[in-house]
């Protein structure tokens, strides 16, 4: 029997299986999940010859250190990531956006992301995974998805059930840029905030807090004063909604967010900026910039065209 697998020497901080997520279950309380940075997720899959909805391993900050057992396989890593491949005594310095071949007993050490949070590891094959609601995407808070809804842990095995025998030699020139101005559309409760509060929101700088994860990004800065009510009747949320909690600080809903929330919505991050938003590391300083719906739609078209053009270059 052909047994191919990764042995996990070090699991990393938050390594999970992800794909495009679940986009139709909010009404029963199941979050979107899926790869946080959609563009880098798609590029990782294209570099290894996969279709656009193919499970990958997403890691945050420190990635996994893996030892490969089995017949040769292609891998690719995307994001802004430092990694090494050990082939016996030979140490290869890894480069993102490039395919590599792993052979039996090779080690892949994903040391860390650099000026970003998330990176992606795709393989030219299929991880042996159980899907839930047609997705492998793992939500570790609700224990939904592959690997029993848990992140990867030390000394576990990652089985690979199928390897694509067409070897790739792919490469892409791409550098991730960091966002400083997050573009937003005014939220449905924008008028809950004082004139001074609105000014603070659009003029002042905010700092990304350490208390940020796949569910949400908390921001620190000057307090935004609420002059109406610090709670609203609980209602649906979507990715990118910026709520201001009773303490006056904004919190941005990210891919694993709860489906319902009761804090006023001051704004919503535009779809075009979401991938870059999630990559902001704690301590980063950002400003919010207002755009209207038309501009947001145009900006999304541009973002999507750029993504498609990058994919077509591989």
């Amino acid at each position: 029997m052909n047994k191919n697998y990764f042995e996990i020497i070090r699991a990393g901080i938050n390594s999970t299986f992800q794909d495009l997520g679940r986009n139709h279950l909010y009404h029963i309380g199941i979050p979107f999940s899926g790869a946080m940075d959609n563009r880098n997720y798609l590029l990782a899959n294209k570099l290894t010859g996969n279709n656009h909805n193919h499970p990958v391993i997403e890691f945050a900050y420190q990635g996994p250190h893996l030892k490969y057992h089995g017949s040769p396989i292609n891998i690719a890593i995307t994001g802004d990531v430092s990694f090494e491949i050990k082939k016996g005594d030979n140490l290869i310095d890894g480069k993102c956006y490039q395919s590599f071949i792993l052979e039996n007993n090779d080690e892949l050490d994903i040391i860390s992301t650099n000026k970003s949070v998330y990176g992606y590891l795709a393989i030219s094959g299929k991880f042996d995974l159980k899907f839930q609601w047609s997705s492998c995407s793992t939500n570790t808070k609700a224990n939904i998805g592959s690997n029993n809804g848990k992140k990867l842990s030390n000394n576990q095995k990652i089985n690979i059930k199928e390897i694509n025998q067409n070897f790739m030699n792919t490469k892409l020139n791409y550098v991730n840029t960091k966002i400083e101005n997050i573009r937003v559309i005014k939220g449905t409760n924008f008028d809950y905030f004082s004139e001074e509060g609105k000014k603070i929101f659009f003029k002042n700088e905010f700092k990304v807090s350490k208390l940020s994860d796949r569910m949400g990004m908390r921001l620190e800065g000057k307090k935004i004063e609420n002059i109406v009510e610090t709670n609203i009747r609980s209602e649906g949320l979507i990715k990118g909604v910026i709520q201001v909690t009773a303490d006056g600080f904004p919190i941005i809903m990210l891919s694993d967010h709860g489906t319902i929330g009761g804090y006023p919505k001051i704004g919503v991050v535009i779809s075009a900026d979401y991938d870059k938003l999630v990559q902001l590391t704690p301590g980063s300083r950002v400003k919010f910039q207002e755009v209207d719906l038309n501009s947001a739609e145009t900006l999304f078209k541009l973002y999507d065209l750029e993504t498609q053009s990058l994919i077509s270059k591989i």
Partner: protein
Amino acid sequence: MIKNISNLGDAALYCDFGKEVNRETNTQVIKYFKTIRKKNILGVNNITPSYNKLIISFDLKKINFNKLKKVIDNIEITKSDNTQNKKLEIPVCCEEEFSLDIKRLEEILNLKKEKIYENFFAKEFFCYMTGFIAGMPFLGDLEENLRAKRLDTPRVKVPKGSIGLTEQFANIYSFESPGGWNIIGNTPLNIFDNSKEKEPNLVNPGDLVTFKRITKDKYQNYHE
């Protein structure tokens, strides 16, 4: 009826059914939810009903706000969308180890705990929505004398199965999660079953729910 549709960001419709939170308004929200879901409109993703709002998110690659707004503006809710409400009875044990906040409620509401339970168990609740965490039902309405604010500092971990009260609503923690509701008991029933792909939720919007008090003995030997 929908009073107003606005955009929530660039990829969602925010349908407002008015300020009132009552069964009538919520029944309208749920009717729209069911009708829109059945229509399988190209590009529509998550549809989230709540007390008096319906949020429809969509794939910006396939449709945009103005186009989808037109579709929703012209949707007709027919009589056949009137689905029968399911009736459920949920067993609850109120032993001390489960009723974490009953003492706090006795003080706030100025009622003896037996009176609190008597009122609570006599009520038939209506499920307004599910969510926040997978499968959590939001049930209403509690009588005026049982309405209390949430805890000042939410618990980091509310045990799975806990029954909580806040303002006019009751909820059930479908699994262990942070939360700030006043906990009065615990159910041995599995409220969210993630092994069921089709209907993982025990309680769904529009359902009618009553609670039945059970002994600790029954709780421990409970088999669904």
